[in-house]
C-alpha cells in the first residue's frame, strides 16, 4: 500500500493541564520527533496555552515557539470581542494577515461562548472568504449540529473544519456536508468503523483532513484508521495532506 507523507491538522505544542500518561510536547522539536515516527512531516499547530490559558498570550507564545520551524504552520485561536479581552474582528483579521497566519480555531464549548449571530456573527462574517475556521466541538449534539448548519449556510464563503468529532456522527454529518460544501471534517476523533471509507463514498474524500489531537490522544489510532481505510492512494494522499494544503491556500494572504 502506498503511503503518503502526512500533514497534521490538529495538534498543540506546550504544557497542558491533563496530558495523560505520556505527557505533553514542551518544545516543537519534541512534537516533531514524535510525529516523524508516523511520517507526519508538517503540522498545523496551536499553542496549548491559547486553549488552556487565553488566546491572546497563547497565540503570541505560538509564534515565538515555532520560529524557525518551517514545517510547523501556525493557527490562532479566536474569541468574540464583546468583553474587550480580544480584538474586534477587523483588527484580528489585520493581525492574522500581518503575521501570515492562515488558519483560525474556535473552541466554543471549552471557552464558553455562543456561536449565535449576536455573539459570534461579526467574527464569522470577518473570517468568511479570508481564512479557514477550525471549529472544535465537545460533541456533535443537537445544538452544535444546528449551529454548524446555520453558520455554514449563512456564510457560504467561510470554510469550516469540524474538529474533535467522535464516532456517532454519520447520521448528522452526511447531510450537513452534502448541504454545505464549505464544511470539512478533521479525522483525529473519527473512530467510526470504516468511517473514512464511508464518508469518502458518501460525500467525497476531498473534504477530510487528517489530524491527531496531540498531545491528548495517541497518534496510532487515527493513523491506522487512515492507513487501513479501503480507499485508493489518491484519496489517502488527499486526506493525509493535500486537502489541508488546498484549504490553507484558500486564505486571502
Amino acid at each position, binding site marked *: 500500500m502506498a*503511503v503518503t507523507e502526512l500533514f497534521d491538522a490538529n495538534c498543540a505544542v506546550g504544557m497542558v493541564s491533563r496530558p495523560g500518561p505520556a505527557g505533553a510536547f514542551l518544545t516543537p522539536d519534541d512534537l516533531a520527533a514524535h510525529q516523524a515516527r508516523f511520517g507526519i512531516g508538517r503540522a498545523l499547530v496551536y499553542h496549548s496555552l491559547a486553549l488552556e490559558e487565553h488566546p491572546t498570550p497563547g497565540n503570541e507564545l505560538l509564534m515565538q515557539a515555532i520560529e524557525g520551524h518551517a514545517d510547523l504552520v501556525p493557527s490562532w485561536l479566536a474569541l468574540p470581542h464583546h468583553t474587550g479581552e480580544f480584538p474586534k474582528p477587523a483588527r484580528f483579521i489585520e493581525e492574522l494577515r500581518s503575521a501570515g497566519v492562515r488558519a483560525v480555531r474556535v473552541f466554543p464549548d471549552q471557552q464558553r461562548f455562543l456561536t449565535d449571530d449576536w455573539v459570534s456573527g461579526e467574527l464569522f462574517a470577518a473570517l468568511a472568504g479570508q481564512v479557514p475556521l477550525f471549529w472544535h466541538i465537545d460533541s456533535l449534539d443537537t445544538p452544535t449540529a444546528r449551529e454548524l448548519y446555520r453558520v455554514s449556510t449563512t456564510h457560504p464563503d467561510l470554510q469550516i473544519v469540524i474538529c474533535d468529532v467522535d464516532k456517532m456522527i454519520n447520521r448528522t454529518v452526511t447531510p450537513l456536508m452534502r448541504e454545505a460544501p464549505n464544511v470539512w471534517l478533521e479525522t483525529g476523533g473519527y473512530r*467510526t468503523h470504516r*468511517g473514512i*471509507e464511508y464518508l469518502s463514498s458518501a460525500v467525497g474524500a476531498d473534504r477530510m483532513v487528517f489530524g491527531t489531537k496531540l498531545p491528548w490522544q495517541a497518534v496510532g489510532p487515527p493513523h491506522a484508521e487512515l492507513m487501513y481505510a479501503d480507499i485508493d492512494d489518491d484519496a489517502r494522499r488527499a486526506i493525509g495532506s493535500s486537502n489541508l494544503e488546498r484549504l490553507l491556500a484558500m486564505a486571502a494572504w
Partner: protein
Amino acid sequence: MFGHVWRHHAPHPHHHQPDPVAADALAGEPVEDFIIDVHSHPGPGTNFFYQGGGVGDLLRVMDRTGVDYSCFSAYTAIGPDCVRGNELVAGAVRDHPTRVIGFAVPNPNYPELAKEELIRRVDEQGFRGIKIHSTTHEYPIHGPNYIPVYEFADDHRLPILSHTYDSPARIRQLATTYPNARFIWAHAIWQHIRTPDLALTVRDLPNVFCEMSGSGNRRGQIEAFVRVAGVESAVFGSDYPVLGQTWQMGNVAHADLTHEEKRMILSENIRGVLGL
C-alpha cells in the same frame, strides 16, 4: 514505506525503530503475528450508523488488519432478543469456524432462558465464551440471576467478557469465588486512568484480563496499565463495529511496548483460554 521526510532538523536522539507490528500498521498492511480480537459484535447500529457491521464485513476488516480470530457476540443478543442474537452467532460459527469464536449472551432479565441458552450454545454449538452486558440490561453484575452464569463458566472453564466491571473490589470477589472462570473486563484498560486500583487488583488475579477498546485513547494509557498490572493482564479487543478494529489495532501497534509484549496482548495471553 515513507518517501522523503519533510522535516529538516536533526533526527531525534532516540530515533524510533518500529518493531514488526508497528511497521505493518504504519504501512496499512495486515499484522503478521497471530491475533485474537476478544470483543466484536456483528449487527447494525441502532443509535448510530456505520457502514457494514455484518459477519462478512468483519471478516473483510480482519483480513485488512491481520486479525486471525474474532470473538463474536451479537448486538441483537445484547439488546432486545438474546435467543435471536445467539442464533446469528451460531450461524457465523458454523460458516466460519476458523475465524469466528462464539460468545453466548444470557440476559439476566430472562433468567428462565439463561441456563438453557448456555447449554445449547456451549455444549451443543461449540461457543467458547460468554458475554454479559449489565449496563444495557440494567442488572448488577453481582445480582442473583448472574450466579448460574458464573457457575456455568466456572464448571466449563469459560471466559466471560463483561462490559461492566463495577469496582476493583467486585472484580476480586468474582474472580476468587469462581476461580475456574476467566473474567475479561471490556474497556478496562482506559478506565485505568480513572481507577488506578484496577491495575493493582488485577495483577494478582491470574483469571482476570483487561481489554483495551474504548473511546478514550490517551497517549501512553496501555503502557501505563501494563507497567502496573503486568502485560499478562492485557488483551486486545476492538468492540467492532461500535469502534473501528483498525482504530484499536493502531492503539496497540504503536504503543511503546516491545514486540513480545504486543504479541502477548494481541493473542498469547488469551490463546490458551480459548483453546487455540
